[in-house]
């Protein structure tokens, strides 16, 4: 006799009909599970060590027979580190800081415009957001760099616009659009009952937004906001393609100054990788910590 097939015991459980899976009751606008900073923060510390090991081991095996020893390569790196960091990475930080600042201010305005009841405010804001969210960052950078003038004349005084300032404008556009979405998502995640309760207490729409809704949004916005800062920082080496003096540009120049030896590529770019990691990892950890704290409180 055939063994009786019992679903759930001798075979996979099966209802034999369509089953509605439990509704995932995550409120709209919650940070997505695959936030970049969440991924970064989940990278354990041994990944650090592994990266360092690779940076050291790779050239060791690749160029063991070469006359240019691994020691020479790291000595070269050591000589150039102060120049690369103070003249290069500092600008990555400055560019990311100002792009984030301007992008956040514009993004909040754009996000608020997106929830306006007036369609002539809402619609342009939605279009701007979608355009800049879905454009390649490098293309935006090129457009801004080529579209902005080299200098601006105020009567007699001529103000030169340095390349890094243009890079700030170029990078703040996608940040603006993404922060706008963060703001809109956070506002929409506040239950509708909050609006109704405020309305029945004679609050106007503006008063409700500023006194009731936005104070509740603030906490929800911090983790995705920091996530975007980490992504932005990672994107700043794009500026090197446009000749802006930053970490990658200066690393390349340093390698050229050392006669373009191929043994230098891995130590120099490996160092660039490490320094970005060292900068973004604490930010990512802080994001997770904040998320956890707010998750308990709200």
């Amino acid at each position, binding site marked *: 006799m055939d063994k009786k097939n019992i679903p759930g015991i001798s075979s996979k459980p099966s209802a034999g009909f369509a089953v509605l899976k439990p509704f995932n009751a995550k409120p709209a606008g919650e940070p997505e599970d695959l936030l970049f900073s969440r991924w970064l923060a989940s990278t354990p510390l041994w990944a650090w060590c592994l990266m360092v090991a690779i940076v050291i081991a790779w050239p060791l095996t690749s160029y063991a027979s070469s006359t240019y020893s691994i020691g020479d390569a790291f000595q070269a790196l050591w000589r150039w580190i102060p120049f690369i960091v103070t003249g290069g990475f500092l600008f990555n930080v400055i560019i990311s800081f100002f792009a984030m600042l301007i992008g956040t201010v514009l993004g909040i305005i754009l996000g608020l415009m997106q929830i306006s009841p007036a369609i002539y405010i809402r619609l342009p804001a939605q279009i701007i957001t979608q355009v800049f969210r879905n454009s390649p960052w490098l293309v935006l950078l090129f457009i801004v760099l080529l579209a902005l003038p080299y200098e601006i004349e105020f009567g007699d005084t001529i103000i030169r616009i340095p390349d890094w300032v243009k890079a700030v404008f170029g990078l703040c556009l996608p940040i603006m659009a993404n922060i706008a979405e963060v703001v809109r998502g956070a506002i929409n995640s506040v*239950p509708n*009952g*909050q609006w*109704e*309760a*405020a*309305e*029945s*207490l*004679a*609050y*106007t729409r503006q*008063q409700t937004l500023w*006194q*009731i809704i936005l*104070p*509740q949004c603030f906490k929800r916005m911090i983790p995705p906001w920091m996530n975007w800062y980490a992504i932005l920082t990672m994107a700043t080496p794009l500026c090197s393609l446009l000749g802006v003096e930053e970490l990658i540009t200066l690393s390349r120049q340093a390698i050229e100054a050392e006669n373009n030896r191929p043994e230098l590529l891995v130590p120099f770019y490996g160092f660039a990788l490490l320094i970005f990691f060292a900068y973004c990892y604490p930010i990512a950890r802080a994001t997770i910590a904040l998320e956890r704290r707010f998750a308990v409180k*709200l």
Partner: protein
Amino acid sequence: MPQHAWTDDQPIVSIKDVHKSFGNLEVLKGISMDVMKGEVICIIGPSGSGKSTLIRCINALNDIQAGSIQVEGLEVNDKDLNKLELRKKVGMVFQQYNLFPHKTALENIMMAPIKVLKENPVEVEARARGLITKVRLEGKEGAYPGELSGGQQQRVAIARSLAMNPDIMLFDEVTAALDPETVKEVLVTIQDLAEDGMTCMLVTHEMGFAKEIADHIYFTDRGVIVEHGPPATFFDKAEDPRTREFLSQIL
């Protein structure tokens, strides 16, 4: 009738042939009722019968397509309605409490009078503390809504509405989301209010409470008022078969 010519021998809320649709779905199909000052009325009926919608129309949270709702002579169905004026007269309490989670109980009560009515914060605080006592929540002034039980939150919500000194209170299934053991404390609070002479309109499923507290009961089904009357006659001598069926299911 000119606006603001209302005197309290006229209905405080006067609803005449109100029609309301959501898209193609007509939820109110010509509802009329008058409520006098100090009266307590309960609206009962099966879910989807339009009772919550009706109560939300009274303070203009929902608009109506046809008919007239007058609150102290103020026409609600009017494009130029002064909503501030209306909402100062009408307080509302919701099923889901809807307290502001980032403010303490006391701040929840004080916010609207200070921010909207621009009243003196010192006077408002004194009044708010009085209201906390009235809803029997002494000691919970500094608690955030998340730290309070459902029944406590709902009582803060009642106090928050009362802080605006309304003339009419609307209760939209205020005990429906509560644990059975906390229902009573909220009902007692409402009863206190009614005994103080507040005009109350309740949508409720608490039949025992309705029987006890209401001056007049309305039974709605599918967007119309099927039957209404004082509790004694309504519960014991209901005439319409739909009313009788509903009551037999729920009692």
